């Protein structure tokens, strides 16, 4: 998977290493602190959503050329100047001639009512266009997330800090998986397992069988990233004194790895997940394209080709919203995994 190479290590990780507070982790936190923390997080999330929406509005408003003319040409497949009479109904319908501020306010008002505007190409509400196609994409995204976590966790517990060549081999494999371009991995899987071995349907493929290859296409690179990130923390934690203590108490190696070490390694993995959900959604566009699956991918590609900005922006805003929610969830998950964070925040 192609992800900016630098997104991984984490803020809570700092909290884990530098933790001078001698207080017991079980101590109760002041509820007022918790409430203000939650409010601040929600405020930050709301800001990001608002700013993302405003940015997409600006992009639509600043589209070069007259939007009504472009729209009409797009629909009729011609390129020509249009008379005022022809443009009037379109301007009327989309409100292109209103002052920018009025357009912006009605756009924001629409968002609050869950209205993302009207598609230039299909002349349907964007929410309908997206809503019709979102289910397969969401299913694909979450199955690939599960695939990625399962692969990463199993490999991590089994291979981290083993005999030299084992951990070297698997950390090398993780690095390679993380570098794979999604479309290429998808094609290889398609050629080998669907065309060559005939194990999976080549095109479309409704049921669960058709989901396997696309989910692997998205999941394998993410598993590589997750593995790389967590392996670093996992191996560091194996050196911690409490691991020695646990071993001295006679705990089995697997027990130590799962009960004590894994908990620490989960934190960077969680951060990466919150970040990766947005990028999984956009990766789904490619996977759906390779395997000709229904979903947002097809909608998005058509919209980009048809220069249907409201639909593209609608998808972008939706992904931004999902990203923000995912990160709020990840924040909450931190506190569950690492009780010390209740105090350090």
């Amino acid at each position: 998977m192609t992800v900016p190479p630098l997104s991984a290590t984490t803020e809570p990780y700092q909290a884990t290493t530098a933790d001078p507070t001698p207080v017991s982790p079980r101590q109760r936190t002041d509820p007022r602190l918790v409430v203000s923390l939650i409010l601040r997080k929600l405020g930050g999330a709301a800001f990001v959503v608002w700013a993302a929406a405003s940015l997409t509005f600006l992009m639509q408003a600043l589209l070069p050329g007259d939007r009504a003319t472009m729209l009409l040409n797009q629909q009729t497949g011609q390129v020509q100047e249009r008379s005022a009479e022809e443009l009037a109904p379109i301007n009327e319908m989309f409100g292109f001639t209103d002052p920018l501020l009025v357009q912006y306010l009605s756009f924001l008002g629409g968002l609050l009512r869950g209205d993302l505007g009207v598609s230039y190409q299909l002349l349907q509400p964007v929410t309908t266009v997206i809503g019709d196609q979102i289910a397969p994409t969401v299913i694909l995204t979450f199955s690939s997330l599960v695939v990625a976590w399962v692969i990463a966790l199993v490999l991590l517990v089994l291979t981290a800090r083993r005999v030299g060549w084992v951990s070297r081999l698997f950390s090398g494999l993780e690095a390679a998986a993380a570098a794979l371009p999604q479309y290429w991995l998808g094609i290889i899987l398609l050629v080998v397992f669907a065309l060559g071995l005939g194990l999976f349907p080549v095109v479309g493929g409704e049921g669960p069988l058709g989901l396997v290859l696309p989910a692997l296409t998205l999941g394998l690179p993410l598993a590589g990233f997750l593995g790389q990130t967590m392996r670093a923390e996992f191996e560091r934690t194996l050196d911690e004194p409490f691991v020695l203590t646990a071993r001295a108490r006679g705990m089995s190696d697997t027990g130590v790895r799962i009960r004590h070490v894994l908990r620490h390694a989960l934190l960077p993995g969680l951060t990466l997940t919150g970040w990766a959900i947005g990028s999984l959604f956009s990766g789904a566009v490619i996977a759906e394209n390779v395997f000709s699956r229904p979903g947002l991918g097809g909608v998005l590609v058509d919209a980009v080709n048809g220069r249907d900005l409201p639909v593209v922006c609608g998808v972008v805003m939706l992904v931004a919203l999902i990203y923000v929610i995912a990160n709020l969830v990840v924040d909450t998950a931190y506190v569950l995994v690492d009780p010390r964070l209740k105090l350090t925040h």
Partner: protein
Amino acid sequence: MTTTLNGPADQRSPTQHSTTQKPTTVASQLYSSLQSRRPKSRLRQVPLTVWIAAVFALVLLIASLAPSLLATHDPRAIRLEAPLASPNWEHWFGTDQSGRDLYSRMVHGAGQSLLIGLGATGIGVGLAVIFGAWAGLGGRWADAFIGRGLDVFFAFPTLLLAMVFITVYGPSAPTLILAVGLGTAPGYTRMVRGQILAVRHSGYVQAAEALGHSPWRILNRHILPNALRPLLAILTLGIGQSIVWASGLAFLGFGVAPPSPEWGALLEAGRPYITEAWWLEILPGLAVLATALTATILGKHLESALEGSQT
């Protein structure tokens, strides 16, 4: 938001920990001290992977500057009697639907693909230096403003950001370069900002401040050179990433138009024949992957080499 920008620790990629993390145990301390006592000859320290990457980079360079040295056929020569031939002695990588030699086309496309990667990285890193330096040096408000802005941009995945841009300006090579550059800029900005902040709070800058040097001198002599030196590594890493992004967009049909031998265009052109001619997709994809890996290996090596020379 959580997954964001605090302090220098978080712009490090997960794989570099061995060079950047403080050793925690006696054993690892011993290990690192052994490492620093490796033989003086620097060439011998270069691992085999870096050599392979360097050789491949050289091949790429020759392919971009003088493709006819490496190509075996004319990339435009149509041989209708041999369409979709699988790889053989005559055509190493097979032929496409009009019987054109895929290997020669890939060699001739290398330059354009590299140029797209280079251009996009240049734009991304250029924007990153401007905004990262502004955030790192412009004081609290500038930093808060850019930090917030980055939060917002991280909510847009690179691919989607690039697609919005392509929707507005229509698909073409310059749009692709700009789109990938803009899409990757937020990530680089975060790195540059982190670098600058790390340098700004380092001991030697504090020492220079204590000595009473003017802020301008400190900026020019200490902060900028030290913060921007890792940029060379980032640039190298980034070219590989940009080529992958650009080829992904091209695969979706938003790249350079197909008759061109650019790798993304080859990928797009080969798609209808995927069931009968796997080489048309797999081999150009392999070229993209190999280039990305080469850039990553060289970039990482450069990074650790630069870090070594700093201390």
